[in-house]
């Protein structure tokens, strides 16, 4: 894609033109977690629909595409974390977050990406190398001297939350036959789902995917794990659209056939599943049969389980978990527009007192909070959330999104679990003789 095409797209596409609906009411600014804590970002209205008018004006005739303005009139758009709250609260349906993301991409188009931003986009490459060298990688990435060096050389903040690499990837733990999923041994779509595990579950937290597989098995679903790569979201967030499209095409090539055959694609990462559902279309402008098929077949794991429950088909034989569980709904979940299914599921677990923490954003927003110049902003954005979790004084908290979990764990020293881990634990509790105490159960996370 040429630079001019990107500029054209950013201005004339559905996203760009929605600026015309902006009333300038500033509701988006009131909801922006970043503008709340820093002067470096003036707010979504200013860099979004307001700046968009300039972008539109400079590319409309008579100037035409021959004199495109390549950069956003306001470079502070780079401080948008992409949490999406502006789009959520806008009463006029302006696609503010999407507009800002595109503006950032067009600002960066034509330049070689900064090494740091490129690196943060390569979650699969980093993951593969990290797992190969896990003991060394984990030691160095959590060594203060190394982190200081990394900050100096690469620009990743020395205190930012980096996860631990797993010793083995999820895929290697599951074994070759499961991975390949040869068509002749596959159970039919009524008895199986396709798992999109994403980078987090493959390289860092295989236990989350294993918990999902166990919960699905309990409800009569086998799990098929076809070939897949990073969903591409870290690349989109860092303005690397073309490379993200490559990842998207690989995934679509592998998943579309399953989708067409009626399999549902289930994921434990809310951001990966949201990318499959919406961002291939909205951000990468992929609009073919494969994209539509995969989008329509994709489910967040909790959304899927709640749907089973609504059909009266969820095994509700959960054991007791007597605990308070503070829950943070990640920003990406709101993009799904599915409500808060994890809370509905938690309500089925006897003894479990899940509290909706009701805070907008933990701050990290994928890779945003890892960056040297944005780390302090990210921590300030999440601080009210961290305070609520500290005050709740609960043994654990829960959150659907991996980067949020790592951010909250780092900031609060409270272990943060994926909801599916809690549910798997509740099933396990039902299987054990009744010696249930919350202390004993806390050790029982499967897959560990």
């Amino acid at each position, binding site marked *: 894609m040429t630079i001019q095409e990107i500029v054209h797209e950013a201005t004339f596409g559905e996203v760009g033109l929605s600026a015309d609906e902006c009333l300038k*009411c*500033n*509701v988006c*600014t*009131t*909801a922006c977690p970043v503008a*709340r804590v820093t*002067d470096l970002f*003036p*707010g979504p209205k*200013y860099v979004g629909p307001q700046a968009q008018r300039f972008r539109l004006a400079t590319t409309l005739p008579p100037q035409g595409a021959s004199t495109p303005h390549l950069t956003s009139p306001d470079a502070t758009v780079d401080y948008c974390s992409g949490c999406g709250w502006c*789009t*959520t*609260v*806008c*009463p*006029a*349906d302006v696609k503010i977050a999407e507009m800002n993301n595109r503006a950032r991409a067009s600002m960066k188009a034509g330049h070689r990406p900064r090494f740091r931003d490129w690196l943060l986009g390569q979650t699969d490459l980093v993951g593969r190398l990290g797992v190969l060298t896990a003991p060394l990688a984990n030691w160095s990435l959590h060594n203060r001297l190394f982190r200081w060096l990394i900050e100096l050389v690469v620009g990743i903040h020395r205190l930012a939350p980096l996860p631990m690499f797993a010793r083995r990837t999820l895929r290697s733990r599951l074994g070759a036959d499961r991975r390949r999923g040869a068509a002749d041994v596959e159970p039919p779509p009524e008895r199986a789902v396709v798992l999109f595990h994403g980078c987090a579950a493959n390289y860092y937290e295989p236990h989350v995917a294993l918990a999902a597989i166990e919960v699905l098995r309990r409800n009569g679903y086998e799990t098929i794990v076809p070939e897949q790569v990073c969903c591409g979201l870290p690349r989109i967030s860092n303005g690397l659209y073309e490379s993200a499209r490559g990842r998207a095409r690989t995934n679509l090539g592998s998943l579309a056939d399953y989708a067409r055959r009626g399999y549902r694609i289930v994921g434990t990462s809310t951001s990966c599943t*949201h990318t499959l*559902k*919406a961002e291939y279309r909205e951000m990468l402008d992929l609009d073919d049969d494969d994209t539509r098929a995969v*989008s*329509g077949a*994709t489910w967040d794991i909790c959304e899927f389980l*709640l749907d089973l*429950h*609504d059909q*009266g088909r969820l095994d509700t034989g959960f054991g007791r978990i007597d605990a308070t569980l503070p829950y943070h709904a990640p920003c990406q979940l*709101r*993009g*799904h*527009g*599915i*409500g808060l299914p994890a809370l*509905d599921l938690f*309500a*089925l677990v006897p003894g479990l007192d899940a509290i909706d923490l*009701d805070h907008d954003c933990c701050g990290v927003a994928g890779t945003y909070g890892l960056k040297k110049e944005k780390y302090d902003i990210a921590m300030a954005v999440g601080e009210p959330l961290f305070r609520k979790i500290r005050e709740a004084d609960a043994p654990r908290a829960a959150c659907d999104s991996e980067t949020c979990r790592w951010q909250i764990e780092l900031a609060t020293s409270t272990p943060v679990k994926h909801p599916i881990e809690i549910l798997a634990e509740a099933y396990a509790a039902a299987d054990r003789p009744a010696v249930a105490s919350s202390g004993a159960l806390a050790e029982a996370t499967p897959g560990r």
Partner: protein
Amino acid sequence: MPQADVVVVGAGLAGMTAAIALADAGARVEVVARGHAATHWTAGGIDVAAPRGSETSAKGVKRLARQDRHPYAILGEGLPAALTGLRSVLATEGLDFHGDLADPLCAIPTAIGGTRRAAILPTAQANALVQWQSSERLVVCGPAGFKDFWPDAIAASLRRPAVWGSEADPDASPSRIDAIVVELPGLAGRHNLSGLDLARFFDDPRWRADALERIARAVDRSGAQRGGGRIALPAALGLADHAAAFDEASRILPLAPFEMPLVSPSVPGLRLYAALRAALRRRGGRIAIGEPVEGIAFEKRRVTSVTMAAAVRDRVIRTEGVVLATGGIAGGGLIGRSDGRLVEPLLDLPVEAPPAENWLAADPFDPAGHPLEAAGIRTDSSLRPLDAKGKVVLENVAIVGSLLAGQHYLVERCGDGVAIASGHLAATTLAPKASVSVESRRAPAAAKDTVGRQRAGTRR
């Protein structure tokens, strides 16, 4: 499919009032809205009624209720109780209001140097409600470089006697009006400083102690405090920590302070929304912003479910009732079509509206109000929508707020009162069936409903 007893569409004052009252009645409520609503734009007071020629809100309500097409013809009687109820809900959340229905409507000075008539205002604006004594001064004070509040221009405009109204007692204005501009810490050279930014500065106890000291010193230096009077400040005295910020301002400043609401984003409006939201959540109500309603399904004159747009697969909530709080033309509750029709987009309810050739008034500031303003949905006395023949269209739908036909809320200043009274009434219309436990409800009319209810019985 999730289940709610009542789905409230719209998160403005009317929708939130209805949702809170329904939750109080024991209903499972879910508020859904495409975005934030007029709460974020309005001045944060409660405008009940201020038509020309009425000295109090109560008299204004009576006058409007006499027009039999006005919402107050239905709502007027229930208004005092609804207002008292909501005020106590908000007070629990730390947001107190002063003034009442029987109090005189006063000329309140505004941030553009005009006045508007009001009687019920939040604590931080309430000092503007007290009648001006002949010796009293008004000091308009704002931070330097703040583009939304120009003390010199405001004071200059307020010095014109005509601003204080021909109906008002000529004595009931300040004896002298001064402007003071103060350099506040950390604001120099800031671009795009909004009332919201300023309010967040005031949330910081150390910053605000310093800022209030500077304001107090500036007032002292000007000598404006002699003889007593009041000081008008931009409505930005804190957001999360507003009560403490206003207390401190009252203690430290040599004159009695009051806030002047600014252009959007409105800080007093944000405080109101925060209090409403906290009250709803405290009662177990749910709220989902950013999920536009795509459609509402009904069978035999009863609404059965509400469908929201999601990333893929619509999200459907099965429900026993719907409160439609989607606003009027400004809020998107009514949409003007190019063929000259006004439509209600969610249920295609019959809209009472003037014919297209009468949409435009000769005088845009006609004291009688704009003809299109009165457009809306006609209802029965339980707020259920009616067709042109006066027959109830949907049994379990209640219309609230500015979607109600017959009001000219801009000139009558009745929008908040109609919102609160209709929200309250909607709860009594829809709650009786909803407040009973799921198992003991009467048998539903439609077979499809039965399935839904049994499912509901298994949830939670």
